[in-house]
C-alpha cells in the first residue's frame, strides 16, 4: 500500500512546499505530479496482478479507524487523475511562463496555482482511496475549497463571483452531505462505506442516502443543481478549468457510483431518480451548449451534459452485484475526464492565440488553425462518444445492458444526448476547420507550446483509450462488489 500512501500524502506535502517556497512552486508541482503518476500506475499494476488492497490507517480497523481501499475502480480513477494531472501540470508550466501580464501577477498566479492544484490532487486521491463517509466529507471540503481557489485565481470579477457562488453552493452541498452522514450514523451507528448496504434496510438509512446523493448532486453539478458550475468552469484559467471540469466533479460522481455499487439493488428508486435527473441534465446542458456564444461556456455546459450522461449511466445500471453495467459509467467518467481536460486546455490555447473565446470569432482570417484546435476536435470525438473512443465503449456497454432489459426510453435518451453533443461540438470544430477565404495568404500559424502537447496528448489518449479499453475494464472487473 506504499503507493496508496504516496498518493494520499505526497500532494499535500508538495502543496505545503509549493506554498512555502513560491519560487520553486512549479518544480514542486511537476515532481509531485510525476511521482503521483508513477505511483498510480504502480498501484494499478499491483491491483491488476494481486487484486484489491486495503489498509487500515494507524492499524485501527474500520469502523473505528479509517481504511484506505484500493480496488479496480479506485485504481482507474487514480490513474485517470494522474494522467490528467500530468497534462495539466505541463500546461500550467507553460501557462505560467508565457502569461503576458506583469511579473508580480504571474508569480502570484504561480504561487497560488500550485498549492491549490496539488491540494486538489491530494484531495482527489484521498477521496478515491477513502473507505469512510466522514473522511470523504473532509476530502470534499478540501476539494471544494481548492477548486474554488483555482476558480478565483485569475482574479477577474467574473471568476470571483463564480468562485463565491461555487463555494456557497458547494458548502451547502457539503452540509447536506454531512447531514446525510449524520443520519447514516443515526441509522446504523457507523459511517464507513461498508455500512452502506445496511443503510438500505431502514427508512432513516435510506433518507440518509437520499441526502448524501443530494449533496453529491450539488458537488457534481447535476442538472438542477448545476447553476454554479458553468460560470465557475468558464471563468477559471485554462489549466484550472481543466482540473475543475475533468476531475473535481468526478469526485462526487465516483462516490455516487461507489455508493450505488455498495448499496446494490436496495436503492432502485434513488437510482432511477438520479437517472432521470441525469437525462434531464444531459438534454439541458446540451441545449445550453448549443446556444452558448462563448467557447468556454460551451465546454462548461457540455460538462453539465456529460455529467448528466454519467449520472444516467450510474442510475440505470443494473444491480451491480449481478451486472457489469456500472462499468460503463466508470468508463464514461474516464473518457470524459481525459477528453474534457484536453478540451479545456485546448480552449485555453485557442483563447490565448485569439485573444478571446467567442465562438463566432473563431475563424479569424489572420490565423491558421493550430494544434490546439486539432486537439479540440479529437477531444470532441471522444466526448461525443464516437468509435473507437472509450466513451463509445462506455455507451456500448450501457446500451448493451439496456437492450437486455428492453429499456428503450433510456436508449432513446442516450442516443438523443449523443446527437445533441455532436451538434454543439460540431459548431466549434466546424469553425476550427476554417480555410479558403477565411484564411489570409500570409496568415500565421500558432507556435507549438507545451500546452498544445498536453492537450494533444490527452486528446489522443482519450481516443486511443477506446482501443485499449480492455485494460480499465479488466481493472474494473476485479472490483469487489
Amino acid at each position, binding site marked *: 500500500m506504499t503507493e496508496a500512501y504516496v498518493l494520499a500524502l505526497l500532494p499535500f506535502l508538495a502543496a505545503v512546499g509549493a506554498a512555502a517556497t513560491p519560487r520553486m512552486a512549479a518544480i514542486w508541482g511537476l515532481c509531485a505530479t510525476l511521482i503521483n503518476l508513477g505511483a498510480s500506475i504502480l498501484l494499478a499494476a499491483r491491483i491488476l496482478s494481486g487484486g484489491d488492497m486495503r489498509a487500515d490507517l494507524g492499524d485501527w480497523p474500520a469502523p473505528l479507524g479509517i481504511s484506505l481501499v484500493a480496488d479496480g475502480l479506485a485504481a482507474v480513477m487514480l490513474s485517470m487523475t494522474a494522467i490528467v494531472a500530468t497534462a495539466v501540470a505541463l500546461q500550467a508550466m507553460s501557462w505560467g511562463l508565457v502569461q503576458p501580464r506583469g511579473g508580480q501577477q504571474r508569480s502570484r498566479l504561480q504561487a497560488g496555482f500550485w498549492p491549490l492544484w496539488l491540494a486538489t490532487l491530494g484531495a482527489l486521491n484521498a477521496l478515491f482511496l477513502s473507505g469512510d463517509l466522514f473522511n470523504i466529507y473532509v476530502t470534499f471540503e478540501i476539494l471544494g475549497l481548492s477548486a474554488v481557489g483555482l476558480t478565483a485565481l485569475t482574479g477577474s470579477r467574473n471568476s470571483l463571483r463564480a468562485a463565491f457562488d461555487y463555494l456557497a453552493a458547494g458548502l451547502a452541498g457539503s452540509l447536506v452531505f454531512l447531514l446525510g452522514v449524520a443520519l447514516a450514523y443515526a441509522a446504523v451507528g457507523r459511517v464507513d462505506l461498508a455500512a452502506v448496504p445496511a443503510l438500505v434496510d431502514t427508512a432513516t438509512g435510506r433518507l440518509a442516502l437520499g441526502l448524501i446523493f443530494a449533496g453529491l448532486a450539488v458537488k457534481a453539478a447535476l442538472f438542477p443543481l448545476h447553476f454554479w458550475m458553468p460560470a465557475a468552469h468558464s471563468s477559471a484559467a485554462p489549466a484550472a478549468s481543466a482540473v475543475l471540469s475533468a476531475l473535481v466533479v468526478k469526485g462526487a460522481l465516483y462516490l455516487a457510483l461507489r455508493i450505488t455499487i455498495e448499496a446494490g439493488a436496495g436503492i432502485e428508486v434513488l437510482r432511477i431518480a438520479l437517472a432521470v435527473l441525469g437525462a434531464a441534465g444531459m438534454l439541458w446542458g446540451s441545449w445550453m451548449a448549443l446556444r452558448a456564444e462563448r467557447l468556454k461556456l460551451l465546454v462548461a455546459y457540455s460538462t453539465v451534459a456529460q455529467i448528466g450522461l454519467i449520472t444516467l449511466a450510474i442510475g440505470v445500471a443494473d444491480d451491480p452485484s449481478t451486472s457489469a453495467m456500472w462499468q460503463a459509467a466508470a468508463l464514461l467518467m474516464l473518457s470524459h475526464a481525459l477528453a474534457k481536460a484536453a478540451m479545456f486546455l485546448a480552449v485555453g490555447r485557442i483563447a490565448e492565440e485569439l485573444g478571446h473565446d467567442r465562438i463566432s470569432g473563431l*475563424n479569424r482570417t489572420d490565423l491558421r488553425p493550430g494544434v490546439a484546435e486539432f486537439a479540440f476536435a479529437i477531444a470532441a470525438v471522444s466526448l461525443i462518444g464516437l*468509435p*473507437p473512443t472509450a466513451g463509445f465503449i462506455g455507451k*456500448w456497454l450501457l446500451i*448493451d445492458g439496456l437492450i437486455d432489459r428492453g429499456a428503450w426510453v433510456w436508449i432513446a435518451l442516450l442516443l438523443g444526448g449523443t*446527437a445533441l453533443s455532436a451538434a454543439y461540438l460540431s459548431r466549434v470544430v*466546424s469553425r476550427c476547420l476554417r480555410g*479558403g477565404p477565411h484564411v489570409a495568404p500570409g496568415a500565421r500559424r500558432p507556435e507549438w507550446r507545451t500546452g498544445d502537447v498536453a492537450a494533444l496528448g490527452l486528446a489522443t489518449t482519450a481516443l486511443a483509450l477506446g482501443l485499449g*479499453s480492455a485494460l480499465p475494464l479488466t481493472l474494473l472487473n476485479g472490483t469487489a462488489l
Partner: protein
Amino acid sequence: MTELLPLAILMTSLCAAPIILAIPERARTLRTTINLTAATLKVGLVAWLSIAVAAGGEFNLRLGIAPGLDLHLQADALSVLFLALSAVLWFLTTIYAIGYLEGGADRSRFFGFFSLCVAATVGIAMAGNLFTFLIFFELLTLATWPLVVHRGTAESHRAGRIYLAYTLGGGLALTLGTVWLYALAGDVPFAPRGVLGDLPQTAPLALTAIFVLLIAGVGVKAALFPLHGWLPLSMVAPAPVSALLHAVAVVKAGAFGIMRIVYDVYGVETVQLLGLAAPLAALAAVTIIWGSVRALTQDDLKKRLAYSTISQVSYITLGVALLSPVAAVGGLAHLIHQGIMKITLFLAAGNFAEGRGVKTVSAMDGMGRLMPGATIAFTIGSLGMIGVPPLAGFVSKWYLGSGGLDAGQPMVIALLAGSSLLNAAYFLPILYRAWFRDPPEGAPVKRRIGWMLAVPPAATAALILAAGLLANAPFSPLGWTRFIVSLEYL
C-alpha cells in the same frame, strides 16, 4: 509475415495520415513523396493480398477491446473487391489531388484527412465483425467532414453541418443496431451465409428491427432514398473529394455495409425468411428513380453527378436485395463499375472547373473542342452510366436484369429500363452541349491542365472500357464477383 498483410494495408494510410498532418505546409515535395509512396505501397500490398486470397489464404487479426468485443481484421474475397477499388482509385485520385490542389491552402490537412479516409475505407473493407465495421464506418464520417468543409466557405460549412447531421444520425442507428445484435447474438463476425444461428426462429421481431436500424445506418452513407440529402450538398468539396469519397469511398462504404449485413451477418436465407428483402429492394428502386429524376433538374454539374450517384449506388443495394446470385453478381460488379465510372465523371468535371471554370451544365457548350481529353473521358463515363455496351455499366445492368428475372421480379427490367432512360435524359444533354454546341464567345479563362490532372481520368476511362470489354476475362471485376457470389450462394 503474410498474416499481417491486412494490418500493413491499413497502416499504409493510417500511419501516413498523422505524418502528413504534421508536415509543414511548405514541404511540398516531402508530402507528395509520402502520399505517392503510401498509395503505391497500398496498391502493391492489395495486389499481393488479392493473389493470396484467390489462392485460398485466410487472414484474421484480432485485438480484444472489452469482454465480447474484438477488433477484428480479416480479408476475404468481398474485402478484396472493395480494397482493390479503393486502393487503385486512391492512387489515381492522389495524383489528381496533388495536381488539383497545386498552390492551394491547407494541403497538409487535406491530404492527412484524405489518407485517413482511405484508411477508414480500407478498414471497412477488412472489418471482420460488425463492431470493427462500425468503428471504421464512423471514422470515415469524421475523416470526411474536414474534406467537405475544406474550402472553408459558408456554403461548405453548411454542407458539412448537414453531412455530419445525416451521417452521425445514421451512425447512431447503426450503433444501436449493432449493440442490439451483439446483445442478442454475442460477437457478430462476418461469415458467408450469415451468423445468426437459430435466432431468426426465436427472435424474428428483434432481428427485423435490428435489420431496419442497421440498414438505416449504412443507408445514410449509401444515400438510400430518404437519407440521401447530404450527398448533393457535400459536392461543394474539392473535386478529388467528390470524386473519391462521395462517388466511391463513402457511398460504397454504405453499399458495402448493406452487402455485409445481408450476406455475412443475416445471410440470404434469413433475410428471405424474415421477408426483409422486398422492402429493401423497393427502397432501392425508389432511390434509383428518385435520384435520376432529381438529377434531371440540376444545372450544377457536380450536383447532377451527385444525384446520379444516389441513383446508381442503389443498383448495388438492389442487386443485394434481389437475393438472386446473378443479381448479386450485378450488384457487386456495380460496386466496382460505378466506382470507376463515377470517379471518371468527377475527375473530368474537376478538370472542366479547373481548366475553364465550368461548373454548370449550361456552361458546358463546346467543351469537347476546348478540352477534348477530359470530355472524352466524361463521355465514356456518361455512356457507361447509361448502360451503353460494351462499357462497364452495361455489364452490371445486364446481370441485374437477369438476376431480377431469376428472382421472379420482372419489374426489375422495367426499373432498369426506366432508370436507363432517365440516365440518358440527364447525361446526353451534357454530351450534346459539350460536343455539338459552339463554345461561347469570349474565350473563357484557360488554365493549363497538368499531367497530374489529365492522366487519372484517362486511366479510369480506360478502366471503364476494359471492365466492360474484358468482363469475361479472369480477374475482371465481374469474374471476381462471380467468385464471391459462389461463396455466398451455394
